[in-house]
């Protein structure tokens, strides 16, 4: 029997590994991890968090017949409810990262009350069912040793707190920083971009300045600080106090984008009402044909078409390169009954690449969530004109996804395209509807075509040609 293929991203904690088998998700446990799991499953917070969806549904596997052969060091196996789409913090908006951070802290506080703790503090352990964050790593919970400090504190700062501070205090997008380093932002690096007045803001003096200074000076120390703290009486109550303070800090963080960004956002929509209704009806027809597992709405903006798609789809991934659009969509969907729209920050002209160890640890989005249908409404001109991507390349990218597409062509007479073309007329030569249709009809079976009333926009529904 071939060796079990473990998930490449699950190697960090040697106490457990993840593997997939027939579209099911399993976690194998070492003896230590099993002891922790047994303790965890008896706690009251475990049942409460699973019940309200904040912990992934998990059951122990008693009968391992039918599962791949495992190394004997794995003495137990758990099965988890699969997550619809795996996403990473560099694809989340500010509100999502903050809610994930609050979940992490709430779990830690609940665990401390029942003699447990979390051995790490990484947003990669949080996934989403729509806009509901869910903690997925059961092996993170461990029985707390007496006098043990908060081991995940530095990791929490680097991967949760600092990205949030960067966005809230400096209005600097955190996603490129997290995408640039899977370990997050070093205390020293954040300190260097902060101004003197930022030291008066909550959390900066201690969590950034002090931590960076102490860490830099004593990073090579061989002293066993953990043991010394335990001997001196460091207690779970102190950890709880610190975690509660951190929770108040994170809960109070707000990202208030400058007014100009907001006003530009609200005025950039140039559609006529008639066009919008026609587009909505077109999407409704395509979505209504049959139920699909996964739909991408690329360039989702306010999420109008994501919501239409969500009515007859397992999971909709609403993607936009505009962080602000995703922040607003996340906030809005949280208040709605819809539970199958996952908003993500992403730019198809610069998509999230595979990252981490051997480039396998954190796969690219398309390899995590291959769509059945892609909605590309009011998108192509931004990519082809705004990003100089040749028109045939754009259609080739659509075809490579293997998905059905709903795509909109916007002519150069449209006000949006005119704006994109200002001072760049040379790019417009190949941007014609005839050329677009020539390449589209070659790659797809176009089953529907509908010009919109304004006369500058046309919609197409294409089925991929299986070669």
């Amino acid at each position, binding site marked *: 029997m071939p060796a079990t293929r473990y998930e490449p991203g699950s190697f*960090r*904690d*040697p*106490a457990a590994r993840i593997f997939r088998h027939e579209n099911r998700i399993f976690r194998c446990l070492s003896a230590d991890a099993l002891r922790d799991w047994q303790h965890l499953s008896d706690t009251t917070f475990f049942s409460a968090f699973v019940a309200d969806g904040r912990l992934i549904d998990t059951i122990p596997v008693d009968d391992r017949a039918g599962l791949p052969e495992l190394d004997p060091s794995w003495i137990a196996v758990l099965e988890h409810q699969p997550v619809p789409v795996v996403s990473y913090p560099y694809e989340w908006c500010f509100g999502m990262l903050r809610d994930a951070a609050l979940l992490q802290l709430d779990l830690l506080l609940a665990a401390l009350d029942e003699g447990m703790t979390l*051995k*790490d503090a990484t947003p990669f352990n949080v996934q989403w069912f729509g806009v509901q964050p869910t903690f997925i790593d059961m092996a993170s919970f461990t029985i707390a040793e007496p006098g043990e*400090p*908060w*081991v*995940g*504190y*530095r*990791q929490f*700062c680097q991967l949760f707190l600092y990205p949030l501070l960067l966005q809230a205090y400096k209005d600097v997008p955190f996603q490129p920083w997290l995408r640039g380093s899977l370990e997050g932002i070093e205390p020293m690096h954040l300190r260097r971009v902060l101004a003197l007045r930022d030291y008066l803001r909550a959390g900066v*003096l*201690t*969590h950034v*300045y*002090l*931590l960076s200074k*102490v*860490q*830099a*000076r*004593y*990073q090579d*120390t*061989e*002293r*066993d*600080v*953990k*043991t*010394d*703290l335990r*001997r*001196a*009486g*460091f*207690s779970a*109550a*102190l*950890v709880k*106090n*610190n975690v509660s*303070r951190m929770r108040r800090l994170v809960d109070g963080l707000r990202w208030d984008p400058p007014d100009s960004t907001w006003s530009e956002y609200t005025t950039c929509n140039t559609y006529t009402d008639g066009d919008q209704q026609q587009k909505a009806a077109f999407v409704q027809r395509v979505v209504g044909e049959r139920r699909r597992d996964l739909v991408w709405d690329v360039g989702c903006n306010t999420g109008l078409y994501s919501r239409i798609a969500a009515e007859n789809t397992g999971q909709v991934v609403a993607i936009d390169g505009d962080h602000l659009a995703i922040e607003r969509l996340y906030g809005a969907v949280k208040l709605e009954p819809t539970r199958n729209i996952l908003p993500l920050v992403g730019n198809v002209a610069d998509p999230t690449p595979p990252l981490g160890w051997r480039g396998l640890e954190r796969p690219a989005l398309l390899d995590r969530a291959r769509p059945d249908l892609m909605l590309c409404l009011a998108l192509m001109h931004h990519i082809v004109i705004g990003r100089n991507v040749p028109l045939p390349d754009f259609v080739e990218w659509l075809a490579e996804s293997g998905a059905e597409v709903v795509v909109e062509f916007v002519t150069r007479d449209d006000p949006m395209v005119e704006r994109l073309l200002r001072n760049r007329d040379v790019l417009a030569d190949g941007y014609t509807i005839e050329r677009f249709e020539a390449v589209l009809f070659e790659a797809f079976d176009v089953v529907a075509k509908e010009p919109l009333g304004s006369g500058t926009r046309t919609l197409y529904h294409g089925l991929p040609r299986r070669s």
Partner: protein
Amino acid sequence: MGRPRQPNQLVHAGLPVLLLLVVSEAPVEAYLDPGAGSLLVQLALGGVAAGAVFAKLLWHRLTLQFKRRDSDAENP
């Protein structure tokens, strides 16, 4: 009233540096290296309650120093 008292951050800022004088030397074991600095900063964050732990750490270290000196004197 109602709102918890904030620690005096400037006073606490010097605490971890002092702490490093009083900790012993031994290997640390964990899958995630928490970093010595991050553990010490947690005392600075801990406010008044952490002060007692700090005092105890300091006391242990001082008594250890005296014990070493006595031992050195007996076995020159």
